[in-house]
């Protein structure tokens, strides 16, 4: 055969490129979807931009013309980078199932994270094409005056972060099910999410253009930083989810997510410290910690209901060093080790809050309340998630059973929240009808903040936490023992191997 016919330039940079990126870009440039959408977006933007300019007239191009022109361009650009691009990532991942190429990818040397990042990178290349194409239009809008450069930079940075996060969400959503019907449902849901995100982006851009002075406030800039950071962390979460879904059954699907969940707690502590140290906003410390409890709760639900046994493949990779094995304990898969991770999160959140409070101490009473509020939220999580998960682990072993347990625990929360109001209706307890009851963790937090601790409340809190921890104690111990045994076996095996010359 003709050697030149095989198109694979032998540049070393080319060799280092992610294969998925190379394939997807080639496919996109050859396919109709990207080309059609690209020219359509550009055409619509040009037409609408021209009509806006014409409406204001060449002699009356004022600041409002610049604002309107920018908004039109940003609407088209964000539709492309926050809508079409993530959606194409969803379709591309979905196509791996539909075109029967998923197995072929899994069998190759590509690791699941390379597949996910390849999808992300190819989406970002597409987004960069849109950004570079709309660049001159945005410069024109800036030259028309009316839009602050700082606003443009913030809006574009935000849109890039949202594009990254949504693309990874698309990849994660498409990797959830190989069956077509659930994926069609997921596609519809994802479409709705994209529409909402687009609408919100336009609203935020509108607000920033109308009040650019907001961005001169350091607190607001910190908020922008926190938003971008949160979007990227959410993206990392979606990436970890997609990687887990694409991994081999026997491989470690849990540690990535566990590490990320720990990073989330530390990140919340870091931002809390920044807000308290810089602006004296000590309430931000618990607000941020409580904010991350919602995504963490979803993760705990999965970690705590994982099979207890370490897979044979994971066992081979437990550290030989006992200290390292101990330190990695909460990050290895298994329900009992999930409970250990939850304990680790709780300690990290409390320690992080204590350190953050030390930067600008608000007074002993306030400091104590901050810590108690965080503790209370974790205690509720232990009672609502860890205790039923431990109970279920005594009976349920099958994969299907674990799905049922997860659904049941998810259903438990609305039940304990809605049950007391119904009881309140029956027995005429007005506060319970208004969700002001002790089963509601938000009510408990508000009570603790507004009225401080009371002995009965604290006793119940400690009791709930204690019972939940005790219920999980046997499997935590088993989880620790299993890791230490695996570590010792590896040490023994390496000691038995003859030394290599």
């Amino acid at each position, binding site marked *: 055969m003709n050697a030149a*016919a095989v198109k694979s330039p032998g540049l070393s940079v080319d*060799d280092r490129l992610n294969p998925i990126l190379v394939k997807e870009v*080639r496919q996109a440039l*050859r396919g109709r979807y990207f080309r059609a959408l690209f020219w359509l977006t550009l055409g619509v933007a040009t037409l609408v931009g021209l009509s806006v300019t014409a409406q204001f007239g060449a002699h009356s191009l004022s600041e409002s013309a610049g604002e309107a022109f920018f908004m039109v361009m940003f609407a088209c650009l964000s539709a492309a980078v926050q809508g079409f691009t993530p959606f194409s990532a969803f379709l591309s991942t979905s196509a791996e199932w539909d075109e029967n190429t998923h197995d*072929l990818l899994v*069998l190759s040397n590509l690791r699941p994270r390379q597949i996910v990042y390849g999808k992300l990178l190819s989406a970002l290349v597409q987004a960069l094409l849109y950004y570079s194409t709309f660049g001159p239009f945005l410069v024109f809008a800036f030259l028309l005056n009316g839009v602050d450069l700082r606003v443009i930079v913030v809006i574009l940075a935000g849109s890039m972060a949202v594009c990254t996060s949504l693309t990874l969400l698309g990849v994660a959503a498409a990797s959830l099910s190989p069956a077509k019907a659930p994926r069609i449902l997921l596609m519809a849901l994802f479409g709705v999410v994209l529409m909402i995100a687009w609408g919100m982006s336009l609203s935020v851009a509108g607000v920033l253009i109308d009040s650019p002075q907001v961005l001169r406030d350091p607190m607001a800039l910190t908020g922008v930083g926190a938003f971008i950071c949160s979007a990227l962390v959410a993206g990392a979460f979606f990436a970890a989810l997609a990687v887990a879904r694409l991994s081999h059954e026997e491989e470690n699907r849990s540690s990535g997510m566990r590490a990320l969940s720990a990073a989330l707690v530390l990140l919340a502590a870091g931002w809390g410290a920044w807000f308290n140290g810089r602006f004296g906003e000590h309430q931000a410390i618990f607000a941020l910690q409580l904010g991350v409890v919602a995504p963490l709760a979803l993760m705990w639900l999965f970690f705590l209901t994982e099979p207890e046994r370490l897979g044979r493949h994971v066992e081979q990779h437990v550290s030989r060093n006992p200290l390292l094995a101990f330190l990695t304990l909460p990050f290895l898969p298994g329900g009992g080790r999930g409970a250990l991770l939850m304990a680790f999160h709780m300690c990290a959140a409390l320690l992080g809050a204590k350190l953050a409070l030390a930067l600008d101490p608000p007074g002993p009473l306030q400091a104590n309340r901050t810590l108690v509020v965080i503790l209370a939220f974790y205690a509720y999580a232990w009672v609502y998630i860890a205790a039923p998960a431990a109970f279920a682990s005594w009976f349920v072993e099958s994969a299907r059973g674990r799905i049922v347990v997860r659904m049941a625990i998810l259903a438990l929360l609305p039940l304990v929240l809605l049950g007391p109001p119904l009881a309140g209706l029956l027995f005429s307890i007005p506060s319970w009808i208004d969700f002001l009851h002790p089963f509601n963790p938000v009510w408990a937090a508000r009570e603790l903040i507004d009225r401080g601790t009371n002995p009965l409340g604290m006793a119940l809190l400690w009791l709930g936490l204690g019972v939940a921890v005790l219920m999980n104690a046997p499997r935590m111990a088993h989880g620790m023992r299993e890791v230490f045994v695996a570590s010792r076996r590896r040490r023994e095996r390496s000691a038995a191997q003859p030394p290599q010359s």
Partner: protein
Amino acid sequence: MKLLDVRGVTKTFGKLKAVDSIEFGVEAGQICGFIGPNGAGKTTTMRMCATLEMPDTGDVYVDGISVLEEPRLARRRIGFMPDSYGAYANTTISDYLDFFARAYGLTGAKRRGVIERVVEFTSLGDLLDKEIGSLSKGMKQRLCLAKTLLHDPAVMILDEPAAGLDPRARVELRELVKALAQMGKAILISSHILTELSEMCSSVVVIERGQLKGGGAVADVVRSFNSTTQLFLRALAGPEACERRLLESPNVAKVRRERDGVAFEFAGGLDSQAELFAELAQSGLRPIELAVRDSNLEDIFLSLTEGKLQ
């Protein structure tokens, strides 16, 4: 040495035991036919060998590597060709092979060299710029085989590679598979076209309803299952008279009409067979053809399996 070693593998989906404690092996240079009716558990077994499904119990060793303990290492030694062909839209053969060569970690000149070799082996050289969507089924199978060969696997698992191919494409595929075996690869191949398998396989494994029904070298399997001799009788008296006469004879079973004669199984030894021939010659049936038929994989398959689906 067994390059593919399946040890007591079981797989259950819900209440269905798809594969039940199966054990077999394939050695270097051997082509092992994997036969069984639809739903017997062939694809599940092959997917477990390829690390795509996890066995509930047991293990599979590929070139001595456990698919459970080191799936990633095992994959480097496996070339799996699934029954459902995987192709990307808007992709040419050249781009497709280039992508998978990259995915297998091949770089620069080595990648180009490997692609050249597999393209030459599968005779795809003239089609490199063609989009995959426009290829015939036979060409797609060749492309899939080319992709499977990119990383030079020691073990090849081919799930129904001849399904839907025309006779010429089937013959070509058979020659390619034989050539691969001559290179020292262990090949496990499933097919419903048993005549194809019997022509290329050195051993077979028969599975039904998840259970191993038999296995070994083709000749051994045929011999071990030949407790009876397949005979065919054609006589001027007609098949009806033949059938009537044969049913009266001892050691004769499964008498059935075929074309203008009668096929039947004879359970006696050579002496009894000679006596039967003499009797038939003197019986007034006026036999014009009395032949011993060689058993083939199809007969073995039919006698081993009941054809029930799970």
